[in-house]
């Protein structure tokens, strides 16, 4: 099974529009939305839900005010500045301590060292994930809870589910829509993928961010293909991007012109190739022809964890 991850570094370069169109051209396949904190693919495919489950994330600490004696030990131990001295009072103290859930990283240190056993630590629901039917085949997507963390874990869960679903239905191809950046969720979406498709725009920030994401992909040993979106916006930088890509061993799959056709397709809730046969749609068809060919030469995907771990021995 081959897994293609669409990624960009910079946000808003057209990852979702490109991956939606490619999945449509590819025929029955599995589409995985790995941009779990701002998932948008479902807006294009209006998927029909077949399965829905809660995502249980890491535990967060919570102080039970009735047991807190306001000793302040938790505040001293917390490395994440998550403990505030503004909880409600009780019989022993006018003001207890409180843990700000959005700042808590779930390390549990305060829980382990509270002399009053006043801190609860239970895993909670951090979001939902779904398997759906969509026009392009099947779709696996998720919604991270508001202000919840652990998005890397949810990305891995989405990818694993997409592979399972593909296997069950005898589908050979999984498309993943990645998130911007180079941090935890991006590492979780790239690790072990067959091929990364970089969607880059010809702007100073587009090329800057492409260099960083290309280095990350190289470090994770994921081969890459390049799509230059909005290519005519700045032809000089588009050329520079091509040159940079060659240095990283990344081949050009095609260029898409800067047209409102792409935005209008989105407003019509369609993929670009369903919406029109204009220059942008034709360019994406050409990208798919090259990508399809290239996919045959890359390895099957492997996911074996949140990040590729390089264990370092302690001295």
């Amino acid at each position, binding site marked *: 099974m081959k897994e293609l991850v669409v990624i960009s570094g910079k946000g*808003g370069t057209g990852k979702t529009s490109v991956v939606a169109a490619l999945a449509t051209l590819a025929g029955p396949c599995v589409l995985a939305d790995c941009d779990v904190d*701002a998932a948008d693919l479902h807006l294009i495919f209006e998927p029909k839900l077949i399965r829905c489950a809660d995502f249980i994330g890491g535990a967060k600490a919570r102080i039970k005010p009735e047991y807190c004696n306001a000793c302040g030990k938790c505040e001293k131990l917390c490395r994440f500045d998550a403990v505030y001295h503004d909880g409600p009072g009780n019989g022993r103290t006018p003001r207890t301590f409180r843990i700000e859930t959005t700042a808590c990283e779930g390390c549990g240190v305060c829980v382990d060292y509270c002399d009053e056993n006043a801190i609860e630590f239970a895993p909670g629901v951090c979001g939902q994930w779904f398997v759906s039917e969509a026009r392009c085949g099947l779709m696996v997507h998720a919604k991270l809870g508001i202000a919840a963390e652990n998005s890397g874990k949810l990305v891995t869960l989405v990818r694993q589910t997409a592979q399972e679903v593909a296997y069950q239905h005898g589908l050979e191809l999984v498309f993943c829509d990645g998130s*911007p950046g*180079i941090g935890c969720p991006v590492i979780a979406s790239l690790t072990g993928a067959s091929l990364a498709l970089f969607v880059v725009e010809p*702007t100073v920030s587009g090329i800057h961010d492409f260099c960083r994401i290309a280095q990350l992909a190289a470090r994770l040993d994921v081969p890459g293909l390049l799509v230059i979106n909005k290519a005519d916006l700045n032809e000089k930088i588009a050329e520079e991007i091509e040159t940079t890509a060659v240095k990283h061993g990344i081949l050009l799959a095609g260029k898409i012109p800067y*047209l409102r*056709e792409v935005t*209008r397709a989105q407003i019509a809730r369609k993929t670009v190739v369903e919406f029109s046969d204009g220059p942008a749609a034709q360019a994406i068809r050409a990208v798919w022809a090259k990508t399809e060919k290239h996919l045959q030469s890359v390895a099957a995907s492997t996911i074996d964890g949140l990040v590729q771990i390089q264990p370092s021995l302690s001295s």
Partner: protein
Amino acid sequence: MKIAVASGKGGTGKTTVATNLARVAAAGARAVAYLDCDVEEPNGHLFLKPTIDRRRSIDKPLPIVDLRRCTFCGRCSQVCRYGAIACVNKQVLIFTELCHSCGGCLLACPMDAIREVPKTIGELRQGIAGPIRFIEGRLNIGEAMSPRAIRAVKDAGPSVELSILDCPPGTSCPVIESVRGSDLVLLVTEPTPFGLHDLKLAVEMVRVLRLPLAVVLNRCHVGKPDEKRGQSPFVQSTLRANPAKGDCPLFSDQVRQYCISQDIAILAEITDDRSVAEAYSRGQLACDVVPLFAGQIRLLLERLSNGATR
């Protein structure tokens, strides 16, 4: 005043708004600091072109084990909630990428065999861009823990009249870390289904944090058909879309309706203009070259100064 410029969806124009706002405010003789909190992909420097005069590493403490003292009791791996330390066959393995530097293993070790050493995860750069104080964090490639680097950027921020924090996209930990403690979160959105959907998520996130917020509607009128080649780019002279002139199907109205229903002020509407995108592509501040855009940013600054937020 600390203004965090955030978005939900990527590429809606956070950096464009943040850098141009900094420029326009500084031109009005205000003490301005620009903080690039998008440590995974910092781009502000490409537009403000600062002179960097101070650099230092951003570190995270990482445990190391003194094997002469270690009895391989395994307490450290039992307490670690991240699976970042494992004790097997008279060896202690530390998985550096998984470690959150919470210090739990140090506290748990009965033999005092664990101490911490700093590991560099990024770089903090400080300098000036004309009258603007510039601070940027830059996460090293392969590092997953951006919140720590963001904290370093915020800690380095000077106390000036106006601090502008350019935040990363999304709605999870890195954004939360960036916007926490700001006086206003300015959410930049674009009038598309993706833009509106992600704006709603961002609004919910900001409300969980109980911070004041306002919206900037960027690339207004983007739903219009493409112009034929040779025709001059579409520039609307007024700030509002005009349905009578055939501005439909425009998504801008849906964004406006949402903001009204949520009692959120739209502080600026910025016209979709190819010349702004072209200036951006070259690394130019659009307020220096596109007068209409400059006017819209000045109006935004004026409204921010007047506290025109709900």
